[in-house]
C-alpha cells in the first residue's frame, strides 16, 4: 500500500465476517478495508461468496451474520436496517435489479434521492427541481428520459437496468458504492457507459467496490486493489496486475497456493 492512500480514512471495514443463509455458511471469515479515494475489485468464481458479501454489507434480511463486524464510516452497521445503511451513504448496485410493476421509475428515483438528501441535511426536492437535478445525471448514463415514465425496471433490457443502477448511484452520491457484477450481460457500449459513470463518480472522499468475474470491466476502471474470493473468504489481495494474472491463469492456482498458506492471504487482506 502506498503511503498517501493508506493515510486516508477507512470508509468500509469488514472484519472476520461470517454469514449464513438457511444454516449454510456462505461467508467464512472475510476481512476487507476500503479507504476514501480507493477502488477495489473483488473477483472470484460463481459461488465464491462475492455477491453474498455485497448483500450482507447492504443488510439483506435473508442472511444472518454469525460473527465478525461491518463498520461503515466508523459506525457498526449491525443494528441498521437496509434503508438506514442506504441513507448513510452505502450503495449496492444489483447484479439482477428486480422489476417492480406499477411503481414509476421517476417517482422511485425522487423518493430515494430525497431519503438520502434528508439524511445529508439537504433540502428535499419537489417534482420540478428534481427533474432539473436528474437531467445532467441522465446524460452521464446516456439514458433516454422515456425510461422515467415507465415502471421501475419493468421490461428494461439488461443494459437498461444496469444504466438505471448507475443513474441511482449518481443521484444518491454514495460514500461507498458496491457494484455487484454490474458488467455482466452488458454489450461493449453499455459497458463503456457504465465504466465512464463509475470513473466520473469516483472521487477522493468516496470509494468503490467492484464485484466482477471478468477482467474486461477492469480494463475500463483501474482498481487500486484486487481481491480474490473463494469458498467464502478472500484468498489473495494484490494490485491491478493480479486481475491480469487471473485472466491469464484462471483461479485454480490461487486455490492451490491458498491451500498451502491460507493464513498469509488472510493477513494480506486485513
Amino acid at each position, binding site marked *: 500500500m502506498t503511503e498517501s492512500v493508506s493515510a486516508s480514512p477507512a470508509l468500509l471495514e469488514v472484519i472476520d465476517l461470517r454469514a449464513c443463509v*438457511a444454516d449454510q455458511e456462505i461467508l467464512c471469515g472475510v476481512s476487507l478495508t476500503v479507504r476514501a479515494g480507493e477502488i477495489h475489485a473483488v473477483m472470484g468464481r460463481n459461488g465464491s461468496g462475492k455477491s453474498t458479501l455485497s448483500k450482507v454489507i*447492504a*443488510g*439483506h*434480511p*435473508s442472511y444472518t451474520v454469525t460473527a465478525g463486524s461491518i463498520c461503515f464510516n466508523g459506525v457498526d452497521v449491525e443494528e441498521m*436496517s*437496509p*434503508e438506514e*445503511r*442506504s*441513507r448513510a451513504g452505502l*450503495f*449496492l448496485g*444489483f447484479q439482477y*435489479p*428486480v422489476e*417492480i*410493476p*406499477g*411503481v*414509476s421509475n421517476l417517482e*422511485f428515483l425522487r*423518493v*430515494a434521492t430525497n*431519503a*438520502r438528501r434528508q*439524511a445529508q441535511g439537504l433540502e428535499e426536492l419537489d417534482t420540478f427541481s428534481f427533474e432539473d437535478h436528474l437531467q445532467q445525471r441522465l446524460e452521464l448514463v446516456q439514458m433516454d428520459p422515456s425510461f422515467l415514465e415507465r*415502471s421501475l425496471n419493468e421490461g428494461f433490457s439488461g443494459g437498461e437496468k444496469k444504466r438505471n443502477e448507475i443513474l*441511482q448511484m449518481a443521484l*444518491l452520491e454514495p460514500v461507498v458504492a458496491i457494484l455487484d457484477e454490474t458488467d455482466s450481460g452488458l454489450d461493449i457500449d453499455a459497458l463503456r457507459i457504465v465504466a465512464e459513470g463509475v470513473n466520473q463518480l469516483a472521487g477522493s472522499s468516496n470509494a468503490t467496490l467492484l464485484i466482477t468475474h471478468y477482467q474486461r470491466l477492469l480494463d475500463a476502471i483501474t482498481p487500486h486493489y484486487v481481491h480474490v474470493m473463494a469458498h467464502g473468504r478472500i484468498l489473495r489481495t494484490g494490485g491491478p496486475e493480479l486481475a491480469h494474472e487471473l485472466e491469464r491463469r484462471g483461479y485454480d492456482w490461487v486455490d492451490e497456493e491458498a491451500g498451502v498458506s491460507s493464513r498469509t492471504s488472510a493477513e494480506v487482506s486485513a
Partner: protein
Amino acid sequence: MTATTPSNAVNAPVASTSVGDLVSQPYRYGFVTDIDTEKIAKGLSEEVVRLISAKKNEPQFLLDFRLRAFRQWQRMTEPDWAAVGYPPIDYQDIVYYAAPKQQEKKASLDEVDPKLLETFDKLGIPLSEQKRLSNVAVDAVFDSVSIATTYKEKLAEHGVIFCSFSEAVEEHPELIERYLGSVVPIADNYFAALNSAVFSDGSFVFIPKGVTCPMDLSTYFRINSGDTGQFERTLIVAEEGASVSYLEGCTAPMFDTNQLHAAVVELVALDDASIKYSTVQNWYAGDENGKGGIYNFVTKRGLCKGPRSHISWTQVETGSSITWKYPSCVLAGADSVGEFYSVALTNNCQQADTGTKMVHVGERTRSTIVSKGISAGRSSNSYRGLVQLGPKARGARNYSQCDSMLIGDQAAANTYPYIRSQQPQSAVEHEASTCRISEDQLFYLQSRGIAFEEAVSMMVSGFCRDVFNQLPLEFAAEADKLLALKLEGSVG
C-alpha cells in the same frame, strides 16, 4: 406467474418473517355514538315488515312491494356457492329497524342532534354549512335513517333530486314506483329479497334529461347499533343525456358480534346517460382473530337501458368480515358501455368473494373489468366474475384483467371467471395474474433508503393504480392512504 382459469394460488413461505408481520392496524372508526335510539323488537315476520312500512308512512304500493319480497324471501335459501365460510345467521336475532330519536322533521341542519353531526365530523364528513365539503353533496345515513343531505337546494336549481330514500317516497312516489325493483327484482337473490322486504333508508338520485350533475354526490353510511342489521336502498336514475358521479362511503363501530349489512343499489341509465358509481368501503373488519365485523352481502346492479349509455363501477373494498358483492351491468342499449374497476384488500381473517357480472344484451356493447385483489394475513380473497354475451349481442366486446397480490405466507387468492357466449361475433379477452410482494423487491427499495412500510405501500398502490385512476380525484388519494393504513403494522 400467470394463472389460468379458474386459478388458485396459495402463498409459499417466505424466508423472513418481516413481510408476514405486516398485518393489522387499529380501526380508526370503531367508536360508538351514545345516542337514544328507537328500535323495534328483534325478529322478522310479516308484522315487522308492516310495522317498518307504517313507521315510514309509506304508500300502499310500497307496502305491497315489501310484502311480496318478504313472501319471496321465505321461500328462498341462503346461497352457499361463495368461497366464504361463516356460522349460520339467525335472522330472528336481528333488529330490522333502528333510528336515532329526534324530532320528526328536520327543516334545517340546526335541528339535527349535535351528537350526530359530531359523529360525522369525526368520520371526516362534516355536514354543517361552514365546514361541509365544497364540491360534494353528501347524504348522511345513520343506522336506518338519513340524517341530512347537503346542497339540496343548489342541486334542485339544476333539476337534480338528491335526497334520502324515505323523502323520495313521500315527494316523488311516481319515480320510486316506476324504477324501484326494475333493475334488481325482488326475487333476484336471497339478500336482495330480504332487503326489499325490510329496507329502511338510503339515497335517491334523479338527474333529468340533458343535465350534467354540477357536483359529485355522495352517501355516507354509518352503522352504529350493535344488533341492528343495515338494509339500505339506493336508486340512481339518469335520464337521456344526463350524467352523474356518485360516491359511497361506509364505516361501523367495533363490536365483537357480527352485523349484517344487506344493501341493494340500482342504477338506471337512459339513452346517452352516464353514471359513475364509486365506493370506498371501510366497514369494521373484525379483530385479528376474526371476531366481530360486518357481513356485507350487497346486490349492486346497473341497467344501461338506452343506446350509448355508460355505467362505471369503481370499488375499493377494505373492510367487512365477509364481503359478498358483485356490482354488475346489464348492457341492454346498443353501444352501451359497462366498466368495473375494483380493489379488494383483505387482511387477518377477512374473506372477500367479489367481482362483477357483465351481461351483454345489445349490439356492440362493450365492457371492461379490472380487478385487483390483495390478500394479507390469513385472509382469503376471491374474484368471481361473469361475462355473458346474449344471442343479439353482435359485435360485443369484453376485456377482463384480474390480478392478485399476496402479502405474507398464509393468505389465499382465487379467481373464478365465467364466460358464457351465445354470440359468435363477439370478442372476450381474459387475463389473470398472481404475484407476491417478494423479499427481493422490498430489499431493492429499502436499499435505496425507502423504509419497509413505505416500500410495501408504494408497491400496493402501484398495483392498484389502474383502479385508483378511475376514482374521483379527492378520493383517489384517500383510497391510497386507506390501503397504506390497513397494511401498516407492527414492523420492527
